[in-house]
């Protein structure tokens, strides 16, 4: 199907009906939810799946011999298999459940990092990273007397790939970059980044929090070493995330947290750790979250990521054009490859005031630094407004955003 045909076949009205929250009002107006990069709304299928789990399946996993424990374990492990297929991992052993992207990245920093990073080593991140892909590496570098270096970014929000390739040297052990920027929308050229890193003998971790909701992810095709993402940004529950790691890397890493489920045998003298993936899953897991995440990924897969990408791209192009009609509005982040995220500033009006006025119109946008303070400094803005579109948004909602911004101008100019 061509992109145009996919767009025609995309029944956004039907999709909207799958999300009960979209029918509610906010401040007495129809809710226009454009804060999807912060978190997405949940389809009825996910809500129902969690209710079903607690209504008829709830039991602890990997423990009991009784009927319900067997049932919940099967559902839990089926969910893991679904995640494996969704990101095209080779083996279920490579799918570790965490609390979210942040915990996934910290897991790698605390286990792989503390084992492999030595004094004088370098870790490269990009200038458009979320704090979650900056601070864990800063902490690791401080502990190991290693150096954190930052790949520069052009004014468009695109990485300076040639500068990156020049930064690669034998001391670089890891490159940690986002799949797509939460603040600017920039989609990074992962294949080129990964190929160059591997040729240099460096590993690559990708923060996929903004990748999985918008783009088809194939970790084997990317040949990425670690890929982290969160459930709640892809229409699933909060508090659940995934760390994908290549099996041989995960095997060699020491465990992180100790406790139940991550052990084979425990005595006071010696504990034998469990096999992958359980080695990294201490304690009773977020069973509801895992099962809800699989339901969300199934929902997304049923619509099809290509259709979602095409729909969101249409919204991005349309909303960009409409926003630029507003006098004094400037879009921060104009990369050629962008996810459906638009960061903007309006002459003479602080983003926080924009957010309050839009809120009175029922329009939810994010305002602030988007957990990317160094990036805001790079673009010399204290904060931006950000509209981020998901699979259920419409052109009509982009128009309402534009009308809302005209009201902002009425109040402040």
């Amino acid at each position, binding site marked *: 199907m061509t992109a145009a045909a996919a767009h025609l076949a995309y029944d956004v009205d039907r999709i909207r009906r799958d999300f009960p929250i979209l029918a509610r009002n906010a401040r007495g107006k129809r809710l226009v939810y454009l804060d999807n990069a912060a978190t997405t709304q949940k389809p009825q299928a996910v809500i129902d799946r969690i209710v079903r789990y607690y209504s008829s399946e709830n039991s602890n996993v990997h423990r009991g011999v009784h009927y319900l424990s067997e049932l919940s374990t099967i559902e839990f492990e089926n969910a893991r298999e679904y995640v494996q297929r969704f990101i095209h991992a080779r083996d279920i052993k490579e799918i570790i459940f965490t609390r979210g992207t942040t915990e996934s990245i910290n897991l790698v920093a605390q286990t792989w990092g503390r084992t492999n990073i030595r004094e004088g080593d370098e870790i490269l991140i990009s200038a458009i990273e979320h704090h979650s892909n900056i601070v864990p590496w800063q902490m690791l570098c401080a502990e190991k007397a290693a150096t954190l270096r930052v790949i520069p970014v052009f004014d468009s929000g695109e990485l300076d790939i040639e500068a990156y390739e020049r930064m690669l040297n034998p001391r670089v052990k890891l490159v940690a970059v986002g799949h797509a920027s939460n603040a600017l929308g920039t989609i990074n050229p992962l294949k080129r980044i990964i190929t160059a890193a591997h040729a240099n003998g460096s590993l690559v971790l990708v923060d996929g929090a903004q990748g999985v909701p918008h783009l088809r992810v194939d970790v084997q095709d990317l040949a990425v070493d670690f890929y982290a993402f969160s459930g709640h940004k892809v229409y699933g529950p909060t508090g659940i995330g995934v760390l994908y790691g290549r099996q041989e890397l995960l095997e060699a890493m020491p465990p992180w947290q100790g406790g139940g489920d991550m052990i084979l045998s425990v005595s006071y003298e010696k504990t034998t750790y469990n096999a992958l993936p359980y080695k990294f899953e201490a304690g009773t897991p977020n069973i509801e979250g895992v099962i809800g995440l699989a339901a969300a990924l199934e929902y997304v897969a049923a619509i099809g990521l290509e259709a979602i990408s095409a729909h969101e791209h249409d919204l991005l192009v349309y909303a960009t054009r409409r926003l630029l009609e507003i006098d004094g509005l400037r879009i921060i982040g104009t990369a050629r490859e962008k996810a459906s995220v638009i960061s903007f500033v309006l002459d003479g*009006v*602080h*983003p*926080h*005031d924009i957010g*309050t*006025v839009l809120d*009175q119109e029922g329009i939810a946008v994010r*305002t*602030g*630094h988007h957990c990317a*303070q160094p990036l*805001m400094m790079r673009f010399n803005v*204290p*904060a931006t407004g950000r509209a981020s579109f998901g699979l259920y948004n419409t052109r009509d909602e982009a128009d309402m955003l534009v009308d809302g911004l005209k*009201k902002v101008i009425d*109040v*402040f100019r």
Partner: protein
Amino acid sequence: MSDLRELYQQVILDHNKNPRNFHEMADATKRVDGYNPLCGDHYTVFVKVDGETIQDVSFTGNGCAISKASASVMSSTVKGKSREEAEQLFETFHRLVTGDASGLSAADLGRLAAFSGVSEFPARVKCATLAWHTLKSSLEGSEEKVSTE
């Protein structure tokens, strides 16, 4: 729009566009930075205190209309007041923006009354109080950065 007009009263819009005492102060006795990391509001408050009297107040920095107007009104309100009076004004202001204005008279409030609409917008209380918190910390002799998070 009525709540909005209540929040963004003309006094606030005016002080946002033309903030008073919006400059550095070379002979300040104290300067303290105030920062709201959630929205990126960032101000530096300069005070010149002689004994118990606040002789002069100024500020620099940037942030939303509420925070800037509040810094501007704060600077002109406390100038010439004693430390104790300034602290009382902050308490009055804090009660006003958090919706606890019972018993406060128009005379107590003066120009501060323009911020009465803030109490309907809980997310904006931190914006309104940032400069006041910063002033308070400068009067208490703190050199620390103030944060309203």
